[in-house]
C-alpha cells in the first residue's frame, strides 16, 4: 500500500494541509475540466459559425460575379442564333458582350470545322479585352485548333452550359499568357438540335483569387479553391497553385482523411472537417461555388481558433497550480501555528509522564478545542498531583497500619498459651492458625490445683474487632477459671460481661471444659460451639446453649462425662471442618473422624501436627478461609 513519506507522516499539519490541497486539486480539476470542455465547445461552435459565415459571404460574392458572366452569355446567345447568316456580324456581338460587361476578359463564338464552308476549317469570332481596349480576331488557326480545346469540347460533349476548369488564357500574340481565366461555355445548336459550336465567355480569375485569398477569419488561416479535378486554383503556396491537386500528396503518402475531404469537396458538398492538412491540425470549412464544380475552403489552424482559449487555459492552470502550492505552504504554516500548543502539550505531557509533575502547561488563553484540551490536561495534572500526594499518605498510613496489625497479631498470639501444663498423666497441646493477620479464634487453659480449665472459642467476624473481642473473652476466661467456677457459671459471667454494651453485636462460640485430672471426670459447657471429638466420636450434647455475648442473662447448662481416662479428645473451631480445598470442597466431619481413628496412642502434639498436615494437604496451597484452632487433651490413667 502507498505510504506517505516520513516527513509528512510525522506531522499532522503537513498531513492535514496535503489532504486539503489534494481535495482542492480534485475539486478544481473537476470544475476546471468541465469549464474547459464547455468553453472548448463554445469556442468551437463560434469558430464554426464565424468561418461558415465568412465562407458564405465569400461564396455569395463570387457567385454574384459568376452569375453576371452567365447572364452575359445568355444575352449574347440569342443574338448569335439570329445572325448565323452573316458570320462577320458575330464579331460585333462578341465585342458587344465585352462592352456591356467590362468585367469580362474575352468572348468567343466558335463553330465546328467547316461550319461556314466559305470560311474554311476554323471560325471563331473572338473579342478580348486588352487592357481596356477591345480587340476582335479570328481565333482558330493551325497553331490553335480551338475545337480540341476543353472550353469548346465540354459544352459539346455534355450538351449543356458548363464552366471550364481555370486555365491559361489564349492570347494571339504569344498563344498562352500567364493570366488564369475560366470560361462559361454554352453549346450553340441549330433548329434541329444539332451542335454547331460553342459560345464562350471568359473571365479573368485574378479577382477571384484576390477575393478568396483575402478571406482570413484568423491570423494564420488561409483560403483555397480547387477545381473539379482537385487542382488548387487558389492557394497561398505558389508552388502548389495549378501544379498540384488536393490528392497529389496522398499518391505518395495515403491520407484517408484528406482524400475524403477532397471527395466531399468535389461532390459539391458543404461542410467542415477537422484534419491534419499540410502538416498542421486544421479545421477546414468548404462550400461549392455555384455551378462551376469548384469548391472553396477556408483552412483554419486549430491553434489559431483556440489560441485565446489555449492561452486562457494555460494561465488558469498555472494560477491554480501555483495557488495550490501556495495554499499548501500557507496551510502548513497556519495549521502548524494553530497546532503549536498541541505540540507543546504533547512534549510536556511526555515530561509529566516521566514524573515531572511540576511541569507548567502552556496557557495562551485559547477557548477552542486545543484550549479545552490544555485545560483538561491541566486539571488532570492537578488531579494526578493530588492523587499522588494522597497515595503517598495512604501508602504511609497503610505501612503503619500494617505494622500495627503485626504488633496486634503478635500480642494476640502472645495471649494464647504456648507452654502447656506438665502435670502427671495430662497431655495437652493446642495451636491456632489465623486466617488474617489477627484472628478471632482463641484457646486457653488454667490449672487450678488438679483441675484443668480449658476453652476453645471462635469470635464472630474477623480482623481487629474480632481480635479485640477475643482478647477480652480470653481474659475473662482466665480470670473466671482462676475463681474455680463451674463451666456453666463461667459461661454465664462471660456472657453477661460480653453482652453489656455490645453495640457491634459480636459474639463468641466457646467450648468451656473442666477436667478433674484425678477422677478423669469432664464437666463442660458448650456455648454454640462445634462438638468435640472424644475417643473417635463426636460428643453428644444435651445442651447446645447460645454463643456468648448475644443475650444477656441467659442461663447456661453444663454437662458431665464420667471419665475420659485413656481417651483422646479434640476440641476445634470451624476452621477445621470448613477448611476449603481449591475446588471449594469442605474438609468435613467424616474426614475428621477418619483422621482421629488413625491416631490411637499418639501424643496430643502428634495429633495436632497430623491434623494440621491433613488440612494443609486438603487446602493444597490455597490461603486459609478461616482461623483454625485445635486443642488435643489426653488423660493418661
Amino acid at each position, binding site marked *: 500500500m502507498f505510504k506517505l513519506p516520513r516527513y509528512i507522516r510525522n506531522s499532522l499539519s503537513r498531513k492535514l494541509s496535503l489532504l486539503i490541497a489534494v481535495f482542492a486539486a480534485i475539486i478544481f480539476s473537476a470544475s476546471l475540466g468541465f469549464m474547459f470542455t464547455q468553453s472548448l465547445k463554445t469556442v468551437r461552435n463560434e469558430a464554426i459559425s464565424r468561418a461558415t459565415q465568412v465562407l458564405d459571404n465569400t461564396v455569395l460574392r463570387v457567385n454574384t460575379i459568376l452569375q453576371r458572366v452567365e447572364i452575359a452569355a445568355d444575352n449574347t446567345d440569342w443574338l448569335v442564333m439570329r445572325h448565323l447568316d452573316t458570320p462577320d456580324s458575330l464579331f460585333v456581338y462578341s465585342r458587344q458582350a465585352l462592352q456591356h460587361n467590362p468585367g469580362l476578359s474575352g468572348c468567343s463564338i466558335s463553330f465546328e470545322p467547316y461550319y461556314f464552308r466559305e470560311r474554311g476549317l476554323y471560325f471563331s469570332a473572338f473579342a478580348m479585352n486588352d487592357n481596356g481596349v477591345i480587340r476582335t480576331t479570328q481565333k482558330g488557326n493551325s497553331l490553335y485548333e480551338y475545337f480540341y480545346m*476543353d472550353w469548346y*469540347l465540354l459544352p459539346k460533349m455534355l450538351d449543356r452550359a458548363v464552366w*471550364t476548369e481555370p486555365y491559361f488564357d489564349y492570347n494571339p500574340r504569344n498563344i498562352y499568357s500567364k493570366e488564369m481565366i475560366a470560361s462559361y461555355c454554352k453549346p450553340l445548336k441549330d433548329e434541329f438540335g444539332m451542335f454547331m459550336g460553342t459560345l464562350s465567355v471568359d473571365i479573368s480569375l485574378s479577382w477571384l483569387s484576390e477575393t478568396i485569398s483575402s478571406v482570413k477569419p484568423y491570423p494564420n488561416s488561409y483560403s483555397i479553391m480547387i477545381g473539379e479535378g482537385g487542382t488548387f486554383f487558389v492557394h497561398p503556396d505558389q508552388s502548389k497553385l495549378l501544379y498540384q491537386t488536393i490528392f*497529389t500528396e496522398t*499518391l505518395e503518402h495515403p491520407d484517408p482523411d484528406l482524400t475524403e475531404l477532397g471527395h466531399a469537396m468535389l461532390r459539391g458538398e458543404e461542410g467542415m472537417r477537422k484534419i491534419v492538412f499540410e502538416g498542421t491540425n486544421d479545421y477546414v470549412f468548404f462550400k461549392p461555388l455555384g455551378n462551376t464544380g469548384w469548391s472553396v475552403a477556408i483552412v483554419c489552424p486549430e491553434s489559431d481558433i483556440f489560441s485565446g482559449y489555449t492561452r486562457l487555459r494555460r494561465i488558469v492552470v498555472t494560477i491554480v497550480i501555483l495557488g495550490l502550492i501556495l495554499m499548501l505552504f500557507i496551510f502548513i504554516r497556519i495549521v502548524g501555528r494553530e497546532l503549536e500548543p498541541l505540540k507543546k502539550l504533547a512534549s510536556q505531557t511526555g515530561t509529566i509522564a516521566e514524573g515531572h509533575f511540576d511541569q507548567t502547561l502552556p496557557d495562551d488563553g485559547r477557548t477552542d478545542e486545543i484550549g479545552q484540551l490544555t485545560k483538561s490536561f491541566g486539571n488532570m495534572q492537578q488531579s494526578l498531583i493530588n492523587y499522588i500526594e494522597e497515595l503517598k499518605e495512604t501508602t504511609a498510613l497503610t505501612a503503619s497500619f500494617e505494622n500495627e496489625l503485626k504488633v496486634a497479631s503478635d500480642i494476640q498470639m502472645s495471649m494464647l498459651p504456648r507452654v502447656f501444663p506438665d502435670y502427671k498423666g495430662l497431655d495437652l497441646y493446642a495451636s491456632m492458625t489465623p486466617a488474617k493477620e489477627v484472628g478471632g479464634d482463641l484457646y486457653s487453659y488454667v490449672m487450678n490445683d488438679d483441675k484443668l480449665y480449658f476453652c476453645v472459642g471462635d469470635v464472630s467476624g474477623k480482623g481487629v474487632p474480632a481480635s479485640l473481642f477475643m482478647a477480652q473473652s480470653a481474659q475473662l476466661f482466665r480470670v473466671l477459671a482462676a475463681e474455680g467456677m463451674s463451666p456453666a457459671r463461667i459461661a454465664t459471667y462471660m456472657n453477661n460481661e460480653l453482652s453489656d454494651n455490645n453495640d457491634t453485636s459480636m459474639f463468641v462460640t466457646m467450648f468451656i471444659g473442666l477436667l478433674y485430672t484425678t477422677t478423669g471426670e469432664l464437666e463442660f459447657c458448650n456455648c454454640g460451639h462445634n462438638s468435640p471429638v472424644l475417643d473417635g466420636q463426636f460428643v453428644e450434647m444435651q445442651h447446645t446453649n447460645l454463643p456468648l455475648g448475644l443475650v444477656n442473662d441467659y442461663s447456661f447448662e453444663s454437662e458431665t462425662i464420667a471419665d475420659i481416662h485413656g481417651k483422646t479428645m479434640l476440641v476445634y473451631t470451624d476452621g477445621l471442618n470448613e477448611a476449603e480445598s481449591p475446588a471449594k470442597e469442605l474438609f468435613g466431619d467424616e474426614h475428621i473422624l477418619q483422621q482421629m481413628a488413625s491416631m490411637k496412642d499418639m501424643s496430643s502434639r502428634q495429633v495436632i501436627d497430623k491434623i494440621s498436615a491433613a488440612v494443609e494437604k486438603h487446602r493444597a496451597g490455597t490461603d486459609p478461609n478461616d482461623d483454625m484452632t485445635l486443642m488435643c487433651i489426653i488423660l493418661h490413667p
Partner: protein
Amino acid sequence: MFTPQWTAQAQFAGYYVAQEKGFYDEVGLEVEIVHPTSTLTAMTRIRNNESHATTLQLSQAMEIIDRGIPLVNILQTSMNNSMVLVSRRGKSPLSQRRERVGIWSAGFGQIARCMSIKEGLDYDWVPFASNVDLYVKGALDAMLAMSYNEYYQILQAGFELTEKEIYRFCDYGYNVQEDGVYMTRSYYRNHKAAADKFAAASRKGWQWAAENPEETLDIVMKVVEENHIATNRIMQKLMLEEVLRMQEDKSSGQREFRLNPDMVKLASDLMLECGMLRREVTYEQLTTE
C-alpha cells in the same frame, strides 16, 4: 535542335540528363532541346524541318513514313506499350461500344484506333489537346492515357480506379514499342556520325537516369519549372519510375535500346489492316542499317 514529342516532363529525363551532365558536350555536340506546344506538334516540326531529331512513338513514325517522309530510328528507348484505356463510368472499356473515348489530338493512339476496329468496339473518338479535364468533368465515357502520365493525372484528380476500369494494351496483344528518337533519312545520311554520337550520349543519359533517379528527378524538375509546366515532383517521380519500367524488355528484363522486329511487324500489320498505312513499313525501313 532536338524536339521531344510532348511538353517538358520526366518522359524525356534521359535527354535532360545527357544535356545537364554534359554527355552531349563530351561527344562534341551542341544540343538544344525545344519542346512542342500542345498544338504545335513534333510531327509538324519534323515536317517543317525545324527539328533535326525528335522523339516519336513507333506507330507515329510509321504513319509519317507511310506519308512519304522517310525516317530513321537512331535510338529506341521504350520496349513496351504504356497506353491504357481508362473508363469513366465504372465499366470495363471492352463493354463501352460506340462510347465517347478521348484521344490525343496531337496524333498518338494509332494502336488504340486499331484495337477499336479489331475488337469491334467502334469507339466515338473525341480528340483533345491535353490534360484530363474532359474526363474529370464527365464529358467522356473513357479516355486514352499514358500509364506514366494521364493515368496518374486521373488518380491525382481523386479518382479511385479499379483494374476492371483499366485496359492495358500491352496485356491484350497490342504491345507495340513507343518512344524512340527519329530523324529524316536524308538528314541522317548527311550527319551520320553526329546522329550516332547523339544516340550514344542520350542512351548514356537514360542509363544514368536509371541509376540516379533522385538526382534525375531534380534535373527534370528544373526543366519542368523553366518551361512552366503545371506539374509537381510527385507526378514526375511516378512518371520517371513508370517510363524507366517501360524501358525494360519483358523477356530479358534489360534496357535494350533497340527496335524489336516482331513489334515493328505487329504494328505494321495492325495499322495496315486498319487502313492507317497504305503499305507495310518494315523494320529495315526504320533502322539505320
